[in-house]
Every structure is written in structure tokens, then in C-alpha cells.
């Protein structure tokens, strides 16, 4: 009986350690997947890749543009697809990435050159977005950006 008493808790501790190791590995791999998804999403915007955006954006997406305009998934993809929102180039820099369970939060900066309804402008935004781990992949469910003041002339 003595042996059982010490062995069972020890086995549970080993099991807990193995599970926490597995969780850590899962978090690391999810973090890498989240970074990759973020970069893929910026690329899909520039390439007007509607199929990629369908995979990368959550059905419940709320996309708050830096001008305060709000898009859902279908309206955002439609405007990228028909060219009324034409991302000519984006240079994102991820500044922070955190994962809370099945929710990922990214904060970053991006230099954006975009044509909206035929008017081209270039600016830098600060952004944060929220992703959900669903169906075995990250999907962006919230986007909020704010336009940063122009850098002073050198």
C-alpha cells in the first residue's frame, strides 16, 4: 500500500509535467502560426487574394479602419476584390504578440500605401488585432488601427 500511495501522486505529477510541456510546445507552435497568419493576411490584402482572406478572416470579423469606417468580413473582402480598397503595399512590423487560450492579440505598426475609391495615400498606422484559433487555424476577428502623425521632416 505504501508503494501505491507514493507512486500514484508521483505518476500524476509526471503526467502534469508532461501535459504542461505539451501545452508549452503547443503555445510556441501556435505563436509561430499566428505570426505567419498575420504576415499572410497583409500579403493577401496586397495581392487581393480573396481565397486567402476567406481562410484568414473570421466570419464575425469587425474591421475598424483608421478613418473610423467599419467593415465586416464580406464587405472587406468585396472591397479588396473589386479594387475600391486597393492595398498597393504594406510593411508591417509586429511589436507584440500574446496568446490567451484560443485568443491571440497582436500589436504592431505598418507602413501602408493604399488607394481608396481611386485616391492614393501613404501613411503609418498603429494597429492591434485579435485572432481566434478555430478549425485548426488562426482567424482574425477584430482589427483596429489608428493613423500615426506624419514624421517631422528631416
Amino acid at each position, binding site marked *: 500500500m505504501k508503494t501505491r500511495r507514493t507512486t500514484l501522486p508521483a505518476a500524476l505529477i509526471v503526467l502534469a509535467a508532461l501535459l504542461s510541456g505539451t501545452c508549452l510546445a503547443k503555445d510556441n507552435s501556435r505563436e509561430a502560426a499566428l505570426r505567419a497568419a498575420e504576415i499572410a493576411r497583409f500579403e493577401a490584402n496586397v495581392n487581393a487574394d480573396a481565397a486567402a482572406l476567406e481562410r484568414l478572416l473570421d466570419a464575425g470579423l469587425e474591421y475598424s479602419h483608421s478613418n473610423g469606417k467599419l467593415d465586416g468580413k464580406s464587405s472587406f473582402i468585396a472591397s479588396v476584390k473589386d479594387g475600391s480598397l486597393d492595398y498597393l503595399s504594406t510593411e508591417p512590423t509586429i*511589436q*507584440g504578440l500574446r496568446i490567451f*487560450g484560443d485568443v491571440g*492579440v497582436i500589436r504592431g505598426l505598418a507602413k501602408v500605401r493604399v488607394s481608396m475609391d481611386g485616391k492614393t495615400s501613404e501613411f503609418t498606422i*498603429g494597429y492591434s488585432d485579435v485572432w481566434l484559433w478555430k478549425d485548426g487555424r488562426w482567424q482574425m476577428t477584430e482589427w*483596429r488601427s489608428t493613423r*500615426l502623425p506624419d514624421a517631422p521632416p528631416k
Partner: protein
Amino acid sequence: MENLLPLAALLLAPFAQAAGRGDEAAVRAAIEARFGAALHADIPALERLLADDLDYCSYLGTCQTKGQYIGDIESGVLKYQAITSKTDKVKLFADTAVALGRVDVTATRNGEPRSLHIAWTAVLAWRAGRWQLTTWSSTSIDPEAK
């Protein structure tokens, strides 16, 4: 068998805690409490309501830690005169909540008055038996805002 009770309690604790996290209303209440604490410069309340790993990004794109944000309020660098908020949506994902809303703010920063209309996104985490703000990002939706 009795030796296993503490271990069982340890393993089940996260589930017991999750069961008490409440619903959307609890998230909305935490957000409103946070605005109230900021307005009244209630530092102990802010300490409770803000997560230690808070990432607080203003409409200017500048980000602060919990210590920096509370420090600005405590020192009077940032003084709120009025806050009128509306939480438009709350999405709950287990121990994480994402909320969207708008807020009208009248404040001074370094003595300079500001009146802003802000759209915001917040991420809260259920920790230590309460909702804590971990991420705040905002956009000025008033083009005249400085």
C-alpha cells in the same frame, strides 16, 4: 486517497474559477468600473482592474504599461474630467473577452485640455477571480483631434 484531495483540488481549481467568471454583463461591468476608476483617479481600483501585463495603446498609437498608465493618473499628468462610454459588443471566449465600444473623453494631459471621441477595442482576461484589462487600443474618430 485523502492524500489525493489537494492534488484534485489543484487540478479542478481552474474549472471552478472559470465557472464564476460570469457573463457579458460581468465584462461590461469591469469595463465601466475601469472608466469610473480612471475618472476618479482611484488607484487601488485601477490596480485591481488592470492586468499586470497591460498593453495600453492610445489613439496616438503610443503604448504604455500598467505602471506608466497608473503613474500618469496618480501624478496628475493625466486628469479625466468626464468619461461617457458605451460598450457596443462583447465576445466571450472561455477566460478571455473581447469588447468594442466608444467613449467621449474630456481630460487634460500635462495641463493641456483634450476633448475626444474614441472608438476602442479591449481584451480582458479572467484572472484571480475577476476580469482584468490586458489590451486597450483606440482610434480617434474625430478628425480634428490633436
